[in-house]
């Protein structure tokens, strides 16, 4: 036994044979590399251009079709931290899934970034909104069919929105506002809301309002009937396949590895240039950069500010920038019990004047952020109109306000933050909290930093137990309504946490939601923000920019705050 057991060692000890063994090993590796390089050549696209998109309607500028040149086709690989739970459009509520929703599904309306204020028709060729903003009527575009070949009809719209609501999953609340839907004919959908809401059109841009092929989804066990949360069985299938009308179809998803999409050969509109898109799970930013520079991936989504700066200097990639709708804010409790000195509006205003906003953006974010006047992000309705309400750093004014509040000698403040946490824009919670503490010390406020485990801080903040804290907000949908209500109306998500209550602000924001005329809405939102800023329970610190590195041969890559990127417009030369 022992001779056999050690026979390989004996062989290995004979030098010549040992060398032969190692060279065999190297050969095997070499062969592997060859295998790696010998990829099947990208087959040239054969899809003949089908019907051009129907002429854009109402506010839509006719989308100029991207000329499909000879250089179409190929595989486009995105390196990304793929944080998704599901690819079912009516259940997904994460950060990566919208890219897939944007590619494989379509919605009644859309936006054309960088303009995110104008909602444009898409699957609906026109929409009609009653003056009381309670009834929305959509006329579907003719000749739209799903990847399956089925015609897209008003029944599919009703099925999709009902299913969204009945699944009772994380995004279902978005559809709660729908009271009834009618389909006078196959091309018309009339939606009545439970209350007047001018934000509904913008809500329909959200990936959750994607239109699903009801025939296919039902075949896979899907249902839109009450009780769907227990009876619907289509999610497992929708995690691996798509049932949409978009320019791509989902080919498979291996969790934390890859999401594979292929061009929809049946697409009703201008076909996509790319033949295949793979979203690959690469958690480490440095690795993402190496893959991009080596040409193994075409886009890197999770690079930090330092890596972006290095790439820019090296000139090895293009940097695509765009405004996210994320905001980071400083929250101050307004009650005397919890907020203590902060219960005095003048003290909160003093803090608003003491924070060095430019320093935060320039030093911590390397300039990759903007600062809207209030917690409603830049780019949305009613934000430019409120520019005059923006706080500018003014230490003199801060000291003066503290003096007026009888706190000329300063006071003690406890600033709670997530220990080891990360704020929006990838900023370390500790760095941001320390910077603010430094700023406040300059006007005599003695800050005690209070780090807590991220989930503990969040739970305490949600329970309204913190004197002040830094926190982030990510968008639910593309309308100021998504911020105005939670921040401005007493008892709502954010306002509750700092016991903020100003009936005037709440009234302005609620009235804005019921107003059809965009100019009047913008005015109401601006007025509400002015009052909100004067009360200063929340101070917006920054709104980070998205920074994406793409290969130098990539064209047409534009950041989209809703679906990440419109992949149908992306090409490689």
């Amino acid at each position, binding site marked *: 036994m*022992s*001779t056999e057991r*050690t026979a390989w*060692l*004996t062989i*290995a*000890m004979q030098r010549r044979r040992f060398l032969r063994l190692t060279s065999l090993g190297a050969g*095997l*590796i070499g*062969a*592997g*590399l*060859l*295998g*790696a390089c*010998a*990829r099947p050549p990208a087959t040239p696209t054969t899809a003949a251009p089908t019907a051009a998109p129907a002429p854009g309607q109402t506010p839509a500028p006719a989308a100029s079709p991207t000329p499909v040149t000879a250089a179409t086709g190929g*595989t486009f*690989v995105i*390196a990304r931290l793929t944080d998704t*739970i*599901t690819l079912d459009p009516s259940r997904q*509520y994460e950060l990566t899934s919208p890219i897939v929703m944007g590619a494989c599904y379509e919605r009644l309306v859309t936006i054309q970034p960088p303009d995110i204020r104008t909602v444009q028709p898409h699957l609906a060729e026109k929409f009609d909104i009653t003056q009381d903003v309670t009834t929305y009527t959509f006329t579907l575009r003719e000749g739209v069919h799903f990847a399956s070949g089925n015609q897209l009809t008003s029944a599919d719209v009703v099925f999709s929105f009902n299913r969204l609501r009945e699944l*009772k999953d*994380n995004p279902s*609340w978005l559809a709660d506002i729908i009271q009834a839907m009618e389909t006078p004919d196959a091309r018309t959908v009339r939606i009545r809301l439970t209350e007047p809401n001018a934000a509904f059109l913008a809500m329909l841009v959200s990936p959750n309002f994607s239109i699903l092929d009801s025939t296919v989804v039902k075949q896979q066990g899907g249902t839109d009937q009450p009780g769907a949360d227990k009876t619907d069985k289509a999610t497992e299938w929708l995690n691996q396949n798509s049932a949409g009308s978009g320019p791509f179809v989902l*080919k*498979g998803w*291996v*969790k*934390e*590895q*890859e999401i*594979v999409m292929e061009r929809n050969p049946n697409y009703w509109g201008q076909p996509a240039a790319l033949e295949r898109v*793979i979203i*690959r*799970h*690469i*958690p*480490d930013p*440095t*690795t993402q950069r*190496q*893959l991009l*520079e*080596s040409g*193994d*991936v075409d886009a890197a989504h999770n690079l930090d500010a330092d890596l972006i700066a290095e790439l820019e200097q090296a000139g090895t990639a293009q940097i695509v920038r765009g405004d996210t709708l994320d905001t980071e804010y400083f929250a101050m409790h307004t009650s005397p019990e919890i907020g203590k000195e902060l219960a005095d509006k003048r003290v909160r205003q003093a803090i608003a004047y003491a924070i060095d906003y430019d320093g935060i953006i320039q030093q911590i974010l390397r300039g990759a952020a903007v600062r809207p006047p209030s917690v409603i992000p830049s780019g949305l309705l009613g934000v430019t109109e409120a520019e005059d309400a923006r706080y500018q750093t003014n230490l003199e004014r801060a000291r003066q306000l503290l003096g007026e509040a009888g706190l000329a000698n300063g006071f003690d403040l406890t600033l709670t933050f997530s220990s080891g946490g990360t704020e929006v824009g990838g900023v370390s919670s500790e760095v941001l909290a320390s910077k603010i503490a430094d700023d406040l010390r300059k006007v005599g406020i003695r800050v005690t930093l209070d780090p807590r*485990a*991220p*989930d*503990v801080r*969040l*739970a305490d903040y*949600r329970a309204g137990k913190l004197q002040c804290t830094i926190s982030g*907000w990510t968008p*639910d949908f593309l309308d100021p309504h998504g911020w105005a209500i939670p921040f401005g109306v007493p008892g709502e*998500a954010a306002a*509750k946490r700092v016991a903020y209550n100003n009936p005037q602000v709440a009234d302005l924001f609620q009235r804005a939601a019921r107003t059809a005329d965009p100019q009047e809405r913008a005015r109401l939102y601006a007025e509400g923000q002015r009052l909100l800023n004067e009360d200063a329970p929340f101070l917006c610190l920054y709104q980070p920019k998205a920074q994406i590195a793409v290969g130098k041969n990539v064209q047409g890559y534009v950041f989209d705050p809703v679906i990440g990127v419109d992949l149908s417009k992306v090409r490689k030369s």
Partner: protein
Amino acid sequence: MLGQFVLRRFILTIPLLFGITLVTFTVSHLIPADPLMAILPERAASDPETVRMYRERWGLDRSLPEQYVFYLRNLLRGDLGESYTSRRPVAQDLRERFPATVELASAAMLYAVTIGMTLGILSAVWHERWIDHLARVISLVGVSLPVFWLGLLALQLFYANLRLLPGPGRIDPRLTAPPFRTGFYTIDSLLAGDLSLFLNVLAHLVLPGMVLGSYAMGIIARMTRSALLDVLGADYIRTARAKGLMEHRVILVHALRNALIPTVTVIGLTFGSLLAGAVLTETIFAWPGIGRYAVDAAMKLDLPAVMGVTLLIAVVYVIVNFVTDVLYGILDPRIRVS
């Protein structure tokens, strides 16, 4: 005799595994934070009805002992519960991820054992010569270099600069995974009859395997060297040499067998740690294994996932220890008897 020994060792593992579930359950449920508040999105977390629904769905509304009994009952049926974050059965998550880890750990072990033992033997045979010094430096470097640094450096050098080896991931980014059969890409690619994919998978194992195996390689080299040096001084070796045996037979047959016992222990233990502790390597090389799964689960307070992965790793350790013990028995009959 050997059969009895194996059986005895096997029976001992049952109370051990039971104890592990109890400790893991208690520790993970003692965390003073509400997992729901850490997991649910803004809207859902501020809606009492949704919170209640999730509490019920995951059994968090019951008392701790009740939850534990419930957990054990499901466990006996092979049900590890539903992960709070992936919303899938933990067993399924592990089933998909564990093969990736085993594949990587095997590559690492293959590298560590071949290179480590070779270096150890060379150093012992040419004791205090230049080859010994060189081998010791190599093993010291292997033991001391932090894995994340070594990983980034190796990628930068062999992948980004020299383009000798493929980059992170189990396959090239532009290729797609073979159809899931076993979860081992080496096997699945062959089953799919795709030889070029198989070679691609092998090539992708080289760099992370070496990085992950570097520590084990260093330890094994040092263990082999010192154990062999001890044995080489023994009387029976002198006798063997006096009988006129060839030197390579003396070393590889007579000395090495006795020197293997401590080495086998180390190999067993490091294999266990390779399976459980590959978090950094897995992150740098975008390897979807259970090490990263464990860390993610712990960070997100995903209790069923934490329990599941801890149990799996515990089982792996128990098996590795068991195999090691049996190997001792084979290598050294005295252990079998005692």
